């Protein structure tokens, strides 16, 4: 209904403009005034994504466009249908809104942590996959796309944070974060670099990039039920482990050794490392191209993020990228076929890996490429260590307060009370929803 209404608004305004231009007997000064206004609805119409007319419409983001187009074309040829792949800027929110209005795509491609919000809004359908199909994928990738006991997405890639080091200043493979910081700090003290270890935080903080630190000290966000699902009522920030992590962050922060600082943020963290101004960096596969172009192809090492000495291993968040079937799609049969069969094979997954540049979730493909692309194998190992990022809607209440708590602690706020405050804020928000 909404689409019809907006179309009518457009048609009516064009009609009125035309009538206005023809003018009355007295002439048409209105013409000059009305023309720029009439361009407005056209502009806003093209700004909001409009579903294509093809028999299978897929929405993704610009980075994955080529990869999805390639596998979709193969599927279209096999079935003799037309297919349209559209790059959408705000894929998640636009998809949920458009799907609700009945003019969304048939298939959407995105990260697994969207699932909670998508299910909450009834935007995606569960998939029924056989055990044999599932067995081919990395176990924690399947765990990531499982929500409330149902599988909602077919994963094609996994991503997790890893540790990059500049060979010039930190050439080894390190067993502890202390060793990494010591190597980086030596370079800082020698005046060769400005930062020992870049962890993007900024003034609003970043809970995603701090997760390896939190988990290594024994903290966690949500406790896990025996079946591996997350329990939103069990927050692990103000636990002994979480408080130890807060103390660690304080010691490494601006009031302590000044390794973690608020001046390193999402805008400059990767750039500083790529320019050779930071010894080490915690980041994901997406930083690889910048770093290769910056300090050079052979100037860096990658390894999974190590834990602190004598503590637990660091567990970054695992993110899985997946295909989903829209609940209100017009061509559900082809959408279901595409997701459960069309891309559910080694050939399509290899194409996805080659064009989307993500470590593959299908074990067969991962083994095939391990020798050719050791960097991606390292990232796949980092993902093995990772825990799926919780997809619960409650997670939306976590990012902002926890990030802000990290930023405040780095800036010198009392670690224990700040962490307790973050936990209280989060649990109050979850209870109030």
């Amino acid at each position: 209904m909404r689409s019809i209404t907006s179309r009518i608004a457009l048609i009516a305004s064009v009609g009125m403009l035309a009538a206005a231009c023809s003018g009355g007997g007295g002439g048409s000064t209105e013409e000059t005034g009305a023309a720029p206004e009439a361009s407005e609805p056209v502009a806003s119409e093209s700004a909001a994504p409009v579903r294509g007319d093809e028999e299978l419409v897929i929405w993704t983001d610009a980075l994955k466009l080529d990869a999805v187009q390639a596998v979709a074309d193969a599927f279209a040829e096999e079935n003799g249908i037309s297919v349209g792949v559209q790059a959408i800027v705000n894929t998640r929110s636009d998809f949920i809104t458009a799907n609700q209005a009945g003019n969304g795509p048939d298939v959407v491609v995105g990260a697994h942590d969207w699932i909670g919000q998508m299910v909450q809004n009834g935007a995606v359908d569960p998939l029924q996959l056989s055990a044999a199909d599932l067995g081919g994928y990395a176990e924690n990738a399947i765990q990531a796309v499982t929500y409330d006991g149902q599988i909602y997405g077919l994963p094609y890639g996994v991503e997790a944070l890893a540790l990059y080091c500049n060979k010039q200043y930190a050439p080894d493979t390190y067993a502890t974060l202390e060793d990494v910081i010591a190597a980086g700090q030596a370079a800082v003290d020698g005046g060769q670099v400005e930062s020992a270890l870049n962890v993007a935080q900024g003034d609003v903080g970043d809970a995603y990039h701090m997760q390896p630190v939190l988990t290594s000290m024994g903290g966690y966000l949500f406790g896990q039920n025996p079946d591996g699902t997350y329990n939103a009522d069990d927050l692990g920030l103000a636990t002994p482990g979480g408080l130890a992590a807060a103390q660690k962050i304080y010691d490494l922060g601006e009031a302590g050794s000044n390794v973690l600082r608020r001046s390193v943020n999402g805008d400059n963290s990767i750039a500083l490392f790529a320019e050779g101004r930071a010894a080490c960096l915690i980041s994901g596969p997406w930083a690889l191209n910048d770093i290769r172009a910056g300090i050079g192809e052979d100037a860096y090492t990658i390894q999974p993020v190590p834990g602190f000495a004598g503590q637990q291993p660091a567990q970054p968040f695992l993110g899985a990228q997946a295909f989903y079937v829209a609940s209100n799609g017009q061509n559900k049969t082809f959408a279901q076929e595409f997701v459960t069969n069309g891309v559910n094979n080694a050939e399509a997954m290899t194409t996805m890996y080659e064009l989307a540049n993500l470590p593959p979730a299908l074990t067969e493909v991962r083994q095939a490429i391990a020798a050719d692309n050791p960097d991606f194998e390292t990232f796949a190992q980092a993902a093995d260590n990772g825990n799926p990022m919780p997809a619960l809607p409650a997670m939306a209440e976590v990012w902002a307060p926890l990030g802000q708590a990290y930023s405040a602690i780095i800036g010198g706020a009392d670690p224990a009370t700040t962490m307790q405050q973050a936990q209280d804020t989060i649990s109050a928000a979850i209870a109030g929803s």
Partner: protein
Amino acid sequence: MTIAPSRLVTPPPDRSRPRSTLAGRGTSTVLPLVVKVVLLGLVAGLAIAVTPALVRDGSWVFVGGLWAVVVVLLAVYATKRAVPLKYLVPGSLFLVVFVVYPILMTAQLSSTNYGDGTRGTKEATVTRIIGASAVQVPDAPSYTLAVGTTGGVADGPFTFYLVDEATGDAFAGDAEGLTELGADDATITDGVVTEVPGVTLLTRSQINDAGQAGGGLEGFTVPAGENSVIRQQGFSAVELTSPLVYDEAADTITNSETGEVYTPQRAASGDRSYFTAEDGTRLSDQSWGESIGLQNYVRAFTDPAISSDFISIFLWTLLFAVGSVGSTFFLGLALAVVMNDDRVRGQRLYRSLILLPYAIPGFIALSIWSGFWNRDFGLVNDLLGLDVNWLGQTGTARLAVLLTNLWMGFPYMFLICTGALQSIPGDLKEAASLDGANGFMQFRKVVLPLLLVAVAPLLVASFAFNFNNFNAIQLLTEGGPFSPANPTAGGTDILISYTYRLAFGNAAQQIGFASAISVLLFILTGLLAAAQFRATRSLEDVNR
């Protein structure tokens, strides 16, 4: 950044054309008439064309509105009466469609709980909850699928022709259940039924079309076990069972395996309900849209966290808007006065340089400035030899925002002040100096009042713009710094960035509540603008 709406700086429309049209009148009145008839016919035709679709959707309000517009257009343009309306109607209609309608929609949304988890109707939510609980029956076979019909390919009646992927046994399935097919009943190629005597098998595209909403295959299932059905998934079929049963009369969902009964209960937030068991566990995170009256407004005024945020943010928004307009105006005016003096050499060069910040797109400038304020890697600290975390504390962050906005906005003020200064006749100043006024007195008593007559409306517009200057805040500080205790309201948040965070921010979208804040913001901006225009009117007294 201060950008006035473009119509304020657009030169008045060229009046020469209508005059020439008037002069040419009488020589050719046929063409305009034909154009008019064709276009009005087009409007009426379009209205007729879309009416059936609207009637089918039951959108009676839109049908009424559409035809009211058509009637108005016909009445105004097809007759010779109502000449003034011929000019007013197009603008008024645009006003209604693009200004009044969105405002009404926002007001309407503000009386609902629309947001994440409440987008659908209750009916749709129940269907989704039941549908999402369906799981494959353990150890049940999965089938390849062909669909056959003895009627039309669009509306059936349909039969599923299934082949067990493991054993190769073939079945026919319809609403009655499954029947095993003998070797002569169907031809099977590569594990798929490819031919059935007397039955038309659908192509893949036909299956897809029939499965669309309203198609004959939509919701088609074959009863299999006691509690299970065989359902299509792509071009295969699986046997599913759902433990949940909805009782419409009692409005409860029962889990037939555990016996747990879920009833709709209000959540702590008060604006939505969930299916909840007696012990308080929720069946799912899905709720549904409801009209909740004025509750969003009540919340805006009574929730202690929000109302205290609202007042402090409102005060800072005022300070930000006044500070931005004031600082840019005074710097722009001072520069304009200096540059307007004939004794300054190289005026053109200076003026071009001063306009440079105005030429850089605000989006880029703000992102660059955000980097400039960085403590360790930023230009400001580097140049001044300071070690201040500008954006990390509320006070310095506000100062940084104001300074950045000054840099972004003063060229605009310089531009309009220069224009206004040059339009003030020199003999007025001359007369004042003959009366014995010194330079400052001349400026204070003669130049400034005349200047304000021209500039004051632009200052009001600039104030309204800065009052809602979302970009300046979002791109520079994202509203920060925040305290961990209050993640929704940051130190540099203005009302519009705060509203944006409520509606589309990190946490779950609360579009209904954000609409209520928008309505309050709309009223507030309107009142402020009205008061300011009233005040600027007194400036025009100098002309009397």
